[in-house]
């Protein structure tokens, strides 16, 4: 029996080469992509786990700029039962203009990163080397953040120079450090690791320091509690406080997003494979309708009959999935290169060995499962009805018929081709569906990439869209300095508009009387509006806007009350809006409130230049004028922080365009092949009526292009609705919960559809050229 089944299989494979090949390719591709996506996710999480484990990442970090009373912190931490370990890390802040990486001559003057120099920690928060061991540079050596290896194309042995004008210090790169906290490019602080001797020397002429007050907890779920206790104790807190969950999210961001897009693509491909399967199986059942009737009549059980048809899909699904998995094994080093470089390779964990093959197996299970479901109608075929029937075509519903007289103008063949679509809608709706998914495969990553590249993106990240952003960290007498800056900017004729914003600590009073300290950005939010997830910017001192994460922490929604201490008095405020934020740990608030100087955390000034003014020049000018403030031109900011993600996404977009086109070509070939077989008699009749082969080919080309057009329209709608939501879900990993696609209409609505149409048209030309040597007489007699 098994022998017979395999002989059936062998003959089927030979007879239906094209159809089987297309399904094989689709299943193999989706197995490859699902294995890759799953593999990437596992590699990512295990690499992060290993890195966090080896570096002993702190669970809570309070940043602080300015003087610090270490004794108080130490006494408090030693007495707090939540604290397992603690340390205060001193960092020397190095201005970008003093630092040259590599052979120069350019300094890091225009870089967006806050650069600091540190020594290796003794207890935890280790900066790791290539092999995930704490790095210990010798005197004269330096450990450079991995980010710069990619961004500045550095290598071990290259030079790093710190030059303040009066003194100069030169280092050789000993290696690149993996910094569990500050590795991701999206975090704009970077730590350089040096020997204690060099640190002491640098400290002598670079007096600006910042502190990281770091804690490890025995119960990591209680970080919020510890943070609240810390601020309640009035300890040094001039800077944001961040917990380890944010480090994890940011570390996972770039590769995680790529992995998620790959998984989404693989699921779309699987959907296409299943749709194709449905199409081919339904066609086969229609074709074999009477054979199935005879099989039933002569007493073959349902199980037997189903097995004949199912075997092919079991073998096809299995072999294709194995093929896809093998392809994954080949491509794996390339796929995981970025993860292993940035996060280090984990010891091959069992999960990494198991998950990708399981993902591939899942694809084959889906194929077989779908085939079982699609084959169910076999049960319903009545032996008697099949034996008595001549054809099943009568079952097809017909919709409106396009009158042929239109054809005088646009050509009878085109009209016949188009009319066929309206006459056999059930046959064609599936193909339209597949073309729609193809269009979505191309458009969703494309829209996502456009959105990531668009300057408006930052408004989803809690940063107002502007040309230049000026940040000034709180140190002594900074208030006056900020006033000067505002006055300078106000008097600058090249500036179109500006808005000073001051972030300060405010006290929040909960219903139960407990207090919580909260960073609130104050200022006028009407000039540089943010994108609000819900609601709007606060208009007066009685309204406050919260970031998504902060609102979640506080359990507050739109319109809910909140009591904040303003000028020493509790003041009832209403939540006017919720916005998305990725800055400062994603937990922020905005309200136009009066600020007390001693509560200020940092100052910001957002500025738009007049039309025609060069933003880069203005940025450079302000950098000189406003030292030590950090001046960022926002396009540059996006480039430096999201550049890596964007370029990886660009790769995904290219891949998606390739996949979309390949799938469209495969489906067109498959579909036309089956259609032409199905229509043999129809074609013969048309030829006997005097239609030339070219006429008939034109009809099929018209049909294919009409289907594609319908598919592209459906796919565009799908991308802009479901696709946008799916991407919004990925985006929510970053603390942002909603995103509106930035659509580039020329590429999305013209270029890409034309590309798809060209591919489909070429395939159609090739496929219909097979309508050739069919004998009119034999076909009609048959």
């Amino acid at each position: 029996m098994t022998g017979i089944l395999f002989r059936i299989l062998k003959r089927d494979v030979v007879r239906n080469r094209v159809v089987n090949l297309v399904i094989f390719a689709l299943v193999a591709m989706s197995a490859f992509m699902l294995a890759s996506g799953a593999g990437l996710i596992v590699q990512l999480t295990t690499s992060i786990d290993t890195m966090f484990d080896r570096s002993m990442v702190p669970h809570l970090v309070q940043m602080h700029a300015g003087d610090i009373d270490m004794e108080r912190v130490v006494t408090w931490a030693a007495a707090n039962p939540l604290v397992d370990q603690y340390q205060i890390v001193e960092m020397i802040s190095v201005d970008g203009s003093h630092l040259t990486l590599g052979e120069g001559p350019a300094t890091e003057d225009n870089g967006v990163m806050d650069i600091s120099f540190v020594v290796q920690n003794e207890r935890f928060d280790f900066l790791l080397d290539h092999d995930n061991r704490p790095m210990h540079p010798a005197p004269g050596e330096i450990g450079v953040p991995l980010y710069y290896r990619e961004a500045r194309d550095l290598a071990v042995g290259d030079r790093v120079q710190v030059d303040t004008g009066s003194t100069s210090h030169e280092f050789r790169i000993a290696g690149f450090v993996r910094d569990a906290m500050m590795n991701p490019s999206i975090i704009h602080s970077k730590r350089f690791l040096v020997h204690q001797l060099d640190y002491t020397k640098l400290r002598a002429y670079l007096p600006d320091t910042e502190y990281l007050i770091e804690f490890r907890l025995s119960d990591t779920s209680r970080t919020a509690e510890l943070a609240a206790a810390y601020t309640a104790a009035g300890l040094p807190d001039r800077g944001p406080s961040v917990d380890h969950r944010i480090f994890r999210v940011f570390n996972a961001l770039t590769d995680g997003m790529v992995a998620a897009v790959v998984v989404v693509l693989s699921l779309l491909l699987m959907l296409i494979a299943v749709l194709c399967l449905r199409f081919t199986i339904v066609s086969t059942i229609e074709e074999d309708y009477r054979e199935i009737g005879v099989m039933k009549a002569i007493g073959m059980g349902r199980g037997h009959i189903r097995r004949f048809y199912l075997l092919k899909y079991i073998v096809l699904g299995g072999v294709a999935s194995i093929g896809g998995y093998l392809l994954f094994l080949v491509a794996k080093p390339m796929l995981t290169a970025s993860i292993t470089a940035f996060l280090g390779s984990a010891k091959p964990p069992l999960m990494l060995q198991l998950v990708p093959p399981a993902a591939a197996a899942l694809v084959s299970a889906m194929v077989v499962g779908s085939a079982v479901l699609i084959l169910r109608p076999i049960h319903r075929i009545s032996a008697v009805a099949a034996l008595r029937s001549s054809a099943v075509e009568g079952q097809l519903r017909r919709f409106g018929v396009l009158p042929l007289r239109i054809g005088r103008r646009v050509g009878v063949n085109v009209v016949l081709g188009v009319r066929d679509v309206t006459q056999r809608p059930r046959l064609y709706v599936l193909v339209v569906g597949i073309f729609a998914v193809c269009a979505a495969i191309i458009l969703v990553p494309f829209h996502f990439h456009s959105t990531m590249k668009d300057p408006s993106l930052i408004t989803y990240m809690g940063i107002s869209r502007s040309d230049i952003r000026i940040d000034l960290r709180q140190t002594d007498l900074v208030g006056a300095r900020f006033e000067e800056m505002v006055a300078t900017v106000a008097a600058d004729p090249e500036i179109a508009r500006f808005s000073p914003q001051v972030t300060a600590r405010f006290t929040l009073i909960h219903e139960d009387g407990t207090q919580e300290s909260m960073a609130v950005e104050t200022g006028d939010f009407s000039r540089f509006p943010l994108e609000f997830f819900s609601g709007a910017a606060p208009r007066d001192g009685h309204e406050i806007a919260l970031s998504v994460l902060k609102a979640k922490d506080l359990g507050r929604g739109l319109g809910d009350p909140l009591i904040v201490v303003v000028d020493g008095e509790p003041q009832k405020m209403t939540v006017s809006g919720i916005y998305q934020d990725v800055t400062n740990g994603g937990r922020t608030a905005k309200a136009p409130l009066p600020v007390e100087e001693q509560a200020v955390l940092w100052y910001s000034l957002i500025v738009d230049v007049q039309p025609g003014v060069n933003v880069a020049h203005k940025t450079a000018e302000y950098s000189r004028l406003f030292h030590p403030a950090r001046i960022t031109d926002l396009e540059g900011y996006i480039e430096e922080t999201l550049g890596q993600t964007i370029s990886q996404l660009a790769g995904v977009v290219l891949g998606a365009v390739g996949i979309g086109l390949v799938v469209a070509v495969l489906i067109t070939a498959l579909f036309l092949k089956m259609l032409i077989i199905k229509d043999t008699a129809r074609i013969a009749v048309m030829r006997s009526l005097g239609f030339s082969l070219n006429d008939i080919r034109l009809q099929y080309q018209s049909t294919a292009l009409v289907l594609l057009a319908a598919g592209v329209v459906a796919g565009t709608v799908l991308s802009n609705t479901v696709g946008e939501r799916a991407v919004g879900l990925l985006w929510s990993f970053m603390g942002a919960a909603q995103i509106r696609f930035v659509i580039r209409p020329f590429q999305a609505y013209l270029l890409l559809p034309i590309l798809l149409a060209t591919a489909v048209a070429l395939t159609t030309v090739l496929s219909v050229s097979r309508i050739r040597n069919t004998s009119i007489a034999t076909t009609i007699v048959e």
Partner: protein
Amino acid sequence: MNMKQTTTTVLEAQQLSKNYVLGKNNELPVLSSVELSIQRGEFVAVMGASGSGKSTLLYTISGMDRMTSGRVLFNGVELSRLPEPALARIRLTNMGFIFQQIHLLKNLSIFDNIVLSGYLCGNRTRREVEGRAAELMERTGIAEIAGNDITQASGGQLQRVGICRALINKPDIIFGDEPTGALNSKASGEIMDLLGGVHREGTTVMLVTHDIKVAARTERVLFMMDGRIVAEKRLGAWPADGNSNTREGSSADEKAREAELAQWLIELDF
């Protein structure tokens, strides 16, 4: 289920009725209270005009189609009470079917099409099934095309393949629905010779046909009209044929039987 029996009645229909449901409260009676009994080893033909219910009778008494009322007993087992899988098993093991269009599986060779039912039946070894198939193919004159694709055989050859497929499990009864309907007269004669041989070996055969020549080869002809068996004619045993020495004599007998049958049918207004 072992259905091999030694009782004389193989198949019996009692008050067998079948209506086709055309719509709500709209049923078309196709068989009306049919009474029929077929004895073991009989060779029976069912004739009648198109729409008289011949094929429906065949499909219903073979358990392929459900009856509306009445009983069908096959080897003493009441088919109407059996679930579909049990009916399928009986058709596979104890019945053989030959159709006008034989519909072989296109992804199988001719040999595999024949042995498939034998393998599925599962009560003999593979070797036994293949031996039986080889013997049947030898007997029906298609041994040389065993390995061929079904597209490489003529209509007559394919019908022989159908006969081999029907006989592979040594059934108690062979049902034929216009088995020669798609063949020319030469091929038709050859197929009837084969079926005659099968019958002589003891297998019960029941055919539905329009063709007087085919019906004349059987022993008993039933005539149907409007869903009922309205007349029956016993023609007696067919003289031995297939032997070249007696061929002329048999041909004369054949003619006489055909004439007798034609006369009977004329009397019935057919």
